[in-house]
């Protein structure tokens, strides 16, 4: 579970974890929302595993509509859309916390990837705890408001997730920990629409790991020279900087 508007870091972690867990034969349950949910489902599909989307609407209503294609692929690849609500039920505000409870119930273990203070993902984590499920969280940057919720969970005793092996160890009752860094996926889950405006590319950059212009070009369907020109423009404005062969988003700086 995690934020609907995650950082590229959160999106990358969700996709990578889901891919690796799916490879290991773990079914990935999430809520078919945009952001971390969609990345987790996409990751599981990349890992050629089973993924289950728990809807807050009727199973015949895909919300948000942007995930219609994703929902179709989940079903086509042997996954499932499940819902506790009758067919034809549209999105309703009070249905989603109830859906979150169901999601926790279906899972053996809850991983929170990115969650702001008091967000819906934390409700699911609490539901998991109430049902006696293990809860784990992915740490983030201390500068990032989207990691505050995860850090709260960690302080309260949630398991630390650095990679899929941490999750597998918890599931299988193992205690050995291997502190390998996670390699970022070379292709993020959400096929971004072509960025508009001067800062359009910025939301595809992370402040946590460098993104290479070639990967950005492929992901966004842009020409490579165009991406380099846009990135240099961001660099000139102090919004991005180079690291190795890629670019990082510069946090907390406005126009120079």
């Amino acid at each position: 579970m995690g934020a609907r508007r995650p950082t590229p870091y959160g999106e990358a972690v969700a996709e990578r974890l889901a891919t690796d867990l799916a490879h290991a034969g773990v079914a990935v349950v999430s809520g078919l929302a945009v952001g971390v949910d969609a990345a987790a489902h996409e990751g599981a599909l990349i890992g050629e595993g089973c993924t289950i989307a728990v809807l807050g609407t009727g199973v015949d209503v895909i919300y948000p509509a942007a995930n219609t294609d994703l929902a179709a692929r989940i079903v086509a690849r042997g996954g499932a859309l499940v819902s506790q609500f009758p067919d034809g039920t549209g999105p309703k505000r009070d249905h989603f916390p109830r859906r979150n409870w169901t999601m926790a119930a279906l899972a053996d273990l809850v991983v929170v990837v990115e969650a702001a203070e008091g967000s819906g993902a934390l409700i699911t984590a609490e539901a998991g705890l109430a049902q006696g499920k293990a809860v784990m969280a992915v740490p983030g940057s201390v500068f990032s408001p989207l990691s505050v919720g995860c850090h709260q969970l960690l302080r309260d005793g949630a398991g630390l997730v650095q990679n899929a092996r941490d999750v597998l160890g918890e599931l299988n009752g193992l205690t050995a920990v291997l502190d390998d860094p996670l390699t970022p996926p070379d292709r993020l889950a959400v096929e971004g629409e072509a960025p508009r405006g001067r800062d359009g590319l910025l939301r595809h950059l992370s402040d946590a790991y460098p993104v290479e212009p070639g990967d950005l070009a492929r992901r966004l369907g842009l020409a490579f020279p165009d991406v380099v020109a846009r990135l240099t423009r961001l660099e000139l404005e102090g919004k991005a900087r180079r690291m190795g062969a890629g670019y990082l988003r510069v946090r907390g700086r406005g126009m120079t």
Partner: protein
Amino acid sequence: MLPRLPGVVARVLSCLLRGLEGHLVEIQVDISSGPVGFALVGLASGSVREAKERVRSAIHNSGLPFPSQRKLTVNLAPAELRKDGAGLDLAIGVGISLAALGLPSPRSTAFLGELALDGAVRHVDGVLVAARGLIRHGVGALFVPEADAAEAALAGGLRVYPCPSLSIAMAHLTGDTLLDPYSGRAPTPAAADASPEHDLAEVQGQDSARRALEVAASGGHNLLMYGPPGAGKTMLARTLPGLLPPLELQEALELAQVRSVLGDLTAGRPLEWVRPFRAPHHSVSLAGLIGGGSGLATPGEISRAHHGVLFLDELAEFRAATLQALRQPMEQGHIVITRRSGSVVYPARFQLVAATNPCPCGWEGDSQRSCRCTPASVEAYQRTLSGPLLDRIDLQVVVARTPMDVLGREAVGESSAAVRARVVAARQLQIDRQSTLNAGLRAPQLRRWAPLDATALSALRRWAGQRGLSARGFHRAWRVARTIADLDTGGPVREHHVMEALGYRLVERAA
């Protein structure tokens, strides 16, 4: 008929090389009464003085008369030109034989070749250069070793006689058995679509380096690749000759002259159309790199890379003095080497591709492995790079290691032939517009051929201000932007062209 000096019995022409210039040498042979002996005069070095013994045996063994009971004097003129090498042997042998037989000397005919003791004529280096020099001196016929005939014929406008032995040369001169002049076909350039030895299609990922290579090939720009060991920098560099159009006839001839002096031409196929790729090791000596050596200066790696690519791997490991010496040829397209015996000039119009690790251990800035160097050593390493040489490199890109999971699964990249088609079109555009590639544009020409609109200029100025770009660096980015625009539309240089060009500059940060 040349005027006959009193006492001189025979006068035969040959040629000596000084760099890529052929100097006419006249061998004068006098047979007179007096103390019996064989004197060779005219500033002959050791290898030429040994010619006496070779020539004497060769004449005897060819069944020709040798004036052993007379006073024999051979003079090599002009006397102030130091003579070395064995290339004069044939001319000396012919001169002595003509004098001994009392035959007239052939007019405007020159002889090149080393004599074996049995009279056979052996290969000598530099025949092409000599032939071109002789033509300038009005010589119309040239006897050369058989193996070197194709090379000599490249000079054009000269009757070339492939000459297997001294006796055959003499038979021709006496009119007994006439030799046929060499009649090989004129060289024809190779097909432009030949598939290169190292194809870009074999490179996986590396978008930045691919693009930088295309831009470098299109505008003739120098390129630096910056990345950890094993990232494929050498492989990328090796694809550059295959992205360039094949050599033109004039270029191939210039390169063949350098190779001719070095004795590096393939017998029977003296012209190569593929652009050279030279990759000297960082332990290369100054003489090995720019040319030199004891005695006559021979061409170095930079001249062997003429009209091609000079690749310097591990740039930071080269001695500072060695890199310093590259500056003159990089600016001027040739190298002047001065020796006690005079200066020689060799062409050295190469495209530089350099590669370097970011730090002594190689892993600084890598996303997967941590660097083990101290900050001070990284800084010292990068300082050696940021010298004046780097200021002459237009394009700088980071080459990252391709992740293992990408290797072997990514679709095959675009082939060299496809990239070359765009490169050739962009180069033609530049030649038609300004008669030179963009890398050769000076500041006033840039203003004329690559004017920047207000937004493009302000972006470039802003970058220059932020990064402390030197005036030279400013113009380099401008030139690259011109090339990018040529690859794009061929029209005016726009802001996004400048922006992309600045994306291929790194060094300001290290400096």
